[in-house]
């Protein structure tokens, strides 16, 4: 199930919240666990059992680590089981097709992905109806495996206490606000709240505001600007002019930001309504003044996960320069691969890895002397180039799209007239996308609620309701409402 959908918004959400609110505190985690399962099973009727199984294994690994408190080798084995299982799930469901294809291409063999053979066997035996052509990716698998690992790894490092209640642990994994598209909430961040949390009016109101803000970002901004990219992406890149190519990728630049950060806002808002405080996931990334800064503002929870659980264990930057660069390259290749099993994503990750290293080597120091608008433009343009790698389907497509951006296309399919037309049809939308990404919206809200707290509170009430109703108009029409993280 996804948030930006009538069934979630008008049935799941109010029903769950009303029951939750009237339930005694003790029953609330059970409700979270059950609703999480329903929410997940809604889109993954089969894979929900895999999620349950992995939850059970991680829970058991945690309990055993706790029992063998002073036997480090046993604890290590428990951790190994948990990490292998989670990474194994990713390898099977997310990367096995990619790995097989690449082996076949490399040595010219014709191996069938063993997972597909297993699917076939299961179909023959039990008539499961599994996909035998490609492995279907369980939605959100990259999020819940990373979250579970944050528990077992931190427990091994004795940073956190064991969770003795299965319900509490399972409600953490299946917590529906963040299960399909993040943020990646670490166990340590919600450990206390899993035991005891408060739900009060101001928190619920804050959650409603965040949720409506996220919903509006997704429905009103991302979906609308995304239509521009969808049309241009489908064109023949050798026949579009440079202006069209730039327009297309800029449209995607805003689509992915408002879609992803909108999803995070909705998740954080829903978490607040349930009494949780999830970490911030996006902080105006497009006004960053360097690539390193961009990654401290974009998908913050993922970046910090890789930093804590990959980069630092590898030695981080507290080792020789050469080793540090090696660590950075590993982290960035993995970051790319995390976004999907394709060379485009690997290249996209490495691209940022190289940029971060260049900034570290000394370019960052020079950069600091430039005026900040120049630094923002520098960062933004490089990020936009990155999105070409990210959202075209093959490396070849990415190359011809880059070529089109530098004028190699002949404009037969779409030229600057088309670009002007699209812009003229979307002036308010484009203005909103640019200004809000620049931070105008949040600054205005901060200023008003500091200077005129009463007025801001009063104005926000009709504003939120209106935004909800306008989003409903768009949801009822249901023309274009994609879910973008099916490959994560």
């Amino acid at each position, binding site marked *: *199930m996804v948030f930006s*959908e*009538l*069934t979630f*918004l*008008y*049935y799941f*959400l*109010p029903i769950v*919240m*009303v029951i939750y609110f009237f339930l005694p505190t003790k029953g609330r985690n059970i409700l979270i666990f059950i609703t999480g399962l329903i929410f997940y099973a*809604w*889109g993954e*009727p*089969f894979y929900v059992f895999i999620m349950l199984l992995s939850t059970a294994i991680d829970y058991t690994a945690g309990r055993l680590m706790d029992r063998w408190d002073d036997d480090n080798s046993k604890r290590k084995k428990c951790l190994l089981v948990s990490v292998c299982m989670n990474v194994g799930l990713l390898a099977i469901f997310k990367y096995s097709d990619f790995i097989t294809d690449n082996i076949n291409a490399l040595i010219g063999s014709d191996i069938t992905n063993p997972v597909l053979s297993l699917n076939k066997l299961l179909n023959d035996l039990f008539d*499961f*109806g599994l996909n035998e052509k490609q492995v279907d990716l369980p939605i959100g698998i990259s999020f819940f495996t990373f979250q579970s690992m944050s528990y077992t790894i931190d427990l091994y490092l004795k940073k956190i206490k064991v969770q003795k209640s299965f319900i509490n642990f399972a409600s953490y994994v299946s917590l529906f606000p963040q299960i399909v598209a993040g943020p990646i909430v670490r166990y340590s961040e919600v450990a206390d709240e899993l035991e005891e949390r408060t739900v009060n*009016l*101001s928190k*619920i*109101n804050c959650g*409603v*505001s965040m949720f*409506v803000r996220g919903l509006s970002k997704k429905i009103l901004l991302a979906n609308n600007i995304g239509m521009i990219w969808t049309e241009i992406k489908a064109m023949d890149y050798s026949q579009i002019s440079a202006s069209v190519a730039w327009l297309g990728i800029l449209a995607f630049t805003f689509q992915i930001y408002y879609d992803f950060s909108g999803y995070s806002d909705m998740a954080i808002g829903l978490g607040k309504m349930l009494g949780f405080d999830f970490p911030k996931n996006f902080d105006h990334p497009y006004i960053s003044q360097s690539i390193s800064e961009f990654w401290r503002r974009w998908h913050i929870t993922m970046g910090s996960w890789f930093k804590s659980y990959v980069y630092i264990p590898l030695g981080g930057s507290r080792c020789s320069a050469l080793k540090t660069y090696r660590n950075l390259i590993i982290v960035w290749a993995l970051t790319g691969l995390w976004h999907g099993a394709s060379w485009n994503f690997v290249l996209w990750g490495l691209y940022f890895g190289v940029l971060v290293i260049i900034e570290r080597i000394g370019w960052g120091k020079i950069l600091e002397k430039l005026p900040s608008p120049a630094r923002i433009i520098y960062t933004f343009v490089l990020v936009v180039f990155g999105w070409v790698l990210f959202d075209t389907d093959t490396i070849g497509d990415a190359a011809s799209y880059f070529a089109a951006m530098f004028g190699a296309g002949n404009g037969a399919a*779409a030229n600057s*007239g*088309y670009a*002007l*037309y699209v812009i*003229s*049809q*979307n*002036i*308010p*939308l484009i203005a909103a996308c640019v200004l809000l990404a620049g931070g105008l919206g949040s600054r205005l809200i901060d200023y008003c609620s500091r200077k005129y*707290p*009463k007025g801001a*509170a*009063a104005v*926000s*009430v009709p504003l*939120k*309701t209106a935004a*909800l*109703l*306008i989003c*409903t*108009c*768009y*949801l*009822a*029409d*249901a*023309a274009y409402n994609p879910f973008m993280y099916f490959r994560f």
Partner: protein
Amino acid sequence: MNNNDDIVANNKTFAAGQKKFISRAALLSVLLFFGVLIFLGAVTFFSEKESFSENANKYLADFPKITWENYFDGTVTSGIEDYVADHFAWHDSWVRAKSTIELALGRREQNGVYILKNRIVKRAEEADETILQKNLDGIRSFSEALDAPVYLMLVPTSVEIYSDELPKNAPNLDQRAFMDRVKDDLGDSVEFLDVYSAMMSQRDNYIYYRTDHHWTTLGAYTAYSAVGRKMGYEPLDETAFDIEHTEGAFNGTFYSKVLYEGIESDSIDLWHLPQSENDLTVEVYTSVDSEPEIYDSIYFRDYLSVKDKYSVFLGSNQPIVTINTGYIGGKLLIIKDSYANSYVPLLLSHYSEIMLIDLRYIQLPLDSVIDTEDYDSVLILYNVSGFSTDENLKKLGMAG
């Protein structure tokens, strides 16, 4: 001293009042949020469910059957989502509100149509080169195998005739160029009936519906008069017809895309020949191998009371329709899309028999369905937008 205490006390009451106000606003906003969700959810749940949407022209989803099998293949959940989306409370009003908001923000292109000042038009799409070539080959080989003359009439759609009203640079197929290209490609193999300039010269008259993708009967008449001599008949004067203005507002397919109320509804005119319907019979084949249904009028007046009013012309699209006109004349075969349905009534007095074939609903080679040699002339009649994206004309080239 006292004074200071007063200020502090005042500040305290002020702060308390402010806090109270803000928490009241918070309560109101939470209640409104969940109130809207629960209210609309409940109205959707408890309201009487329609089974058919005239505006969307589709049957609405039923609630899915809940079984384990349906659960595992995902049809339960996707079925529930479709059910909620189709039956959502005041569905059409939300869509209407959306198109009004978008128009206010300056977006004229919505859901695939352009909302112009007085009408809604639809962008004609570029033809897929390979499919177009196959279609043209089909027409060519069909025509070359026949002795009877084959005429091809491509009717420009409203977006072309009123293209000057489109937003600047709006992407749109150049229909004039497309027609010329088809004409050149087919060369002498068919007789090309060019109605472009005739339609253009009548653009200030009511020749296209404002809310639908068809031409009006007046539009059809414009083409009918322009091509008569070429097709070998003397076109009747407008005054030879009894023109009936039917009752009831017609909101066509373009209207359904956006449900926008700012465009005046259409009305349908039926042009009657004074003595035509005496001996007329219409045989409608709803499939190629079924027995025909026999009617005594080319107008299916029942459709005038529903939304899909254009179907008053010959009923909805059918694979084969044969009209015995009761007049003396040759036999005409028309390979067509729905533009022909309002064109045929004008032709009755010039032919003894008119057969209409809609290739979209025929999966067999044409000569296994009818004897094409039986006809004195053949007219292929399509609108340009339908022709450029058609995938069925290639069937003309298939032999049985």
